[in-house]
């Protein structure tokens, strides 16, 4: 679904909707893609957080579509649908994370080569190798300003008539991110050095920016992220971090659940270790900066009052 600027979301994808869609696909009907609003640059972003930044920079001259925007689904298990291929085929600007996180985008782009399409890859903007171990780059507070600048540059090249408009929107975004940075510094001053445990490396870049120490072995986090069973040794290590109250909070990826994470969350509740939900992709009804602020506030609340935040609202 394509809408001008802010509310670009697809209609909620319930299970029933998914099944109905499969029925449509099975009977051979083509997936339809709504038209782009006239006079706007068609933009496709692989993840909803990049879509949000693109919409903030592009404003009313960009029609932004997010490919992965279901905060209830595990993005690592995402499979591309034919309508995504159509949206990418007509897009003038594509924004994606890279680092192996959204490889399906490369496949879709290769399927419809176009010299008119520009592609912003966050991992390349940051000058990182595609083999980097933790692909959740958007949790690094330095990522989005750089990506927003790259988006602004490309939008200005695609639609030079509105160059000044895009520059002003970028300045507004940068001002909002500066507020976020101030909040991170305040957090750091108060809580630096505190130990936390996580189920996945989703928020690790933010945690190090906040000065927190993640006591969880990276192997365990990577195994949960990749959907393989962590070794029983690692499970034992992480469980004892929680049951022995050797961490101040357990940060759980709200979008990924497995028997291991469910058990761990239960142990944390039993040991009165606060649990904080870290979202892997941006939850609905948020902007990137409001989302990060909400996560930081939730962690601060857990560390200062021991209160859990299982859902952001």
């Amino acid at each position, binding site marked *: 679904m394509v809408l001008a600027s802010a509310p670009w979301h697809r209609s909620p994808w319930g299970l029933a909707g998914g099944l109905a869609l499969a029925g449509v696909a099975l009977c051979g009907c083509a997936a339809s893609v709504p038209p782009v609003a006239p006079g706007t640059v068609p933009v496709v972003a692989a993840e909803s957080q990049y879509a949000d930044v693109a919409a903030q920079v592009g404003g009313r001259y960009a029609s932004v579509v997010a490919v992965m925007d279901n905060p*209830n689904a595990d993005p690592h*298990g995402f499979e591309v649908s034919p309508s995504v291929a159509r949206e990418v085929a007509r897009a003038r600007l594509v924004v994606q994370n890279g680092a192996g996180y959204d490889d399906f985008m490369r496949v879709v782009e290769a399927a419809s080569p176009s010299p008119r399409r520009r592609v912003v890859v966050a991992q390349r903007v940051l000058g990182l190798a595609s083999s980097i171990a933790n692909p959740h780059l958007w949790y690094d507070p330095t990522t989005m300003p750089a990506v927003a600048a790259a988006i602004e540059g490309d939008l200005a090249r695609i639609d030079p008539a509105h160059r000044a408009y895009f520059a002003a929107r970028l300045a507004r975004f940068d001002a909002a991110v500066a507020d976020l940075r101030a909040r991170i510094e305040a957090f750091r001053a108060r809580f630096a050095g505190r130990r936390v445990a996580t189920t996945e490396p989703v928020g690790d870049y933010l945690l190090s920016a906040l000065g927190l120490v993640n006591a969880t072995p990276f192997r365990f986090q990577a195994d949960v992220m990749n959907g393989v069973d962590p*070794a029983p040794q690692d499970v034992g290590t992480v469980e004892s971090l929680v049951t022995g109250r050797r961490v101040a909070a357990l940060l759980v990826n709200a979008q990924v659940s497995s028997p291991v994470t469910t058990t761990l969350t239960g142990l944390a509740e039993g040991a009165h270790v606060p649990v904080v939900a870290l979202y892997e992709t941006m939850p609905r009804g948020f902007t990137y900066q409001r989302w990060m602020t909400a996560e930081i506030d939730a962690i601060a609340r857990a560390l200062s009052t021991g209160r859990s935040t299982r859902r952001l609202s």
Partner: protein
Amino acid sequence: MRWLVEPGFFTNPVVGTALVLGAVVAVVSAAVGVVVVVRGQSFAGHALTDVAMAGGAGASLLGASPLLGFLLAGVVGGGSIEAAGAERVRDRDVATGVVLGAAAGLTALFLYFVSSSTSATGSTQSVLFGSVFTVSPSVVPLGVAVAAATLVALLVVRRPLLLSSLSPELAAARGVRPRAMGLVFVLVLAASVALSALVIGAILSTALLVGPASAALRVSRGLVGATLGAIAAGVAAVELGILASYDSFYWSAAHRSVPVSACVVAVVLVEVATSAAWARWGRGRG
């Protein structure tokens, strides 16, 4: 001892659950497996694993217990294969193949929805290849109950079943009804597949069903001896597999463990190969 059993093996609660559940599952699989091998139903057994797989995938889509999913699908699928009642071996073979393909397709559909619309992760891995180290201890009582019921049912139908497979005329003379026996046995088989799917995954459960049984049948004479041998081989395969998987954490500097299912299947293969070698060369000299 340190070189054989790495530290923490006996104190790790995850390993404890795995060892108990693994042993229970191995006993049932081996006992049922002997009848499967004697009746020449390995392929039907494998088709049931695919049906069970669809059930496991459906259960993770609905957030239900995987054991219940495996069990329900196996019973329904197995019952319908048996009720279709193809008498000729070739028809039966084709019917089994069709059911197998359909079940695998359904599994693919369910797992697609699991990954695209729910937060469950690793379902593909755990449904297909098992994850006994992540099984919740609360599954153990249900697993033991299903195992006990399966063994009792097997004890009841074992003699008439074997008789009707080894000597149909004699069985008919004694009033054994082969269709009814077949149906009961398929249900027993479905339960056994569901149990082993928990430990080594739906796809690999055939290995645990057929491997220890065929090895034991090669080296022992009577069926009772073969059943006891198969149970010993099955339990050994699962427990050694769990041990090897646990120890493999220490084999590399990066601490990359080998999955339990791969270790169990490796031990089963060694058992089958050893029994084949023994039957071929060892017996002649002894």
